[in-house]
């Protein structure tokens, strides 16, 4: 396997406008819409938290 610099540090500065997921109803959801309100705090999880 290759050795590369720290992945997380390289991701700092990534433009998130085009991130598209789905909402709870299965409808398309874009982060760009949330950014209209201001900064965004994203919390990623799986299952209960």
């Amino acid at each position, binding site marked *: *396997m290759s050795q590369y610099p720290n992945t997380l540090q390289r991701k*700092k500065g990534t433009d*998130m406008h085009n991130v598209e997921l789905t*909402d*709870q109803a299965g409808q398309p959801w874009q982060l*760009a819409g949330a950014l209209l309100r*201001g900064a965004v705090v994203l919390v*990623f999880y799986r299952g*209960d938290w």
Partner: protein
Amino acid sequence: MPGWQHFYAQRRSDNFELISVAMEHTGGDAARPFVEQAHPTFPTVVDEHGVTSTLLGFKAVPNGVLVDEDGVIRWAKYGGFSIDKPEDVEVVERFLRGEDPGPSPVQDVPYTLGPLERELVDSKLRLGRLLDSLNRREEAVTEWQAALRLDPENLVIRKQVWAAEHPEKFHPTIDWDWQREQLKQERENEIAAGVCGPDGSPVPWA
């Protein structure tokens, strides 16, 4: 989730949005019980296809990622991000005050995949999800295990395999003790065997 709901409710007038992203390859149904139990007033979205883990390169959750109003990531913590950790909350509050959140925590991983390896892992994950959607679970798990052998530190993939093989440990409640013991056992077996899967890929950190 209740802790973040309290945080969000206290700062509702601030110009920011809190969004929880459920990393559930089976879609929103898997996240729904937990969301309905917590009744959050902030949005929950679902990453069914691993879009964000591919884009951001994370291998574990829970994560916190702070995105400024221009859509640019200013800080990220992969794994162990929690409302119960004062240091994590302090960073978020500093960011929301418009201050520099500071450097992101160093991600301590024993290896990083190259572009072609990453593409292969992503392809196997996508194929597995497609097979799973066609009720071909055994074949799906085979693909996910192949992805895990290439990226053995990736707990998102590892838990996907667990959830497919041991659904009773994930729903209706998550058995955290089982997960800890399972991870310990699997890693011990992988290191003892010098492989990270039945097909014999070397364990990079052993």
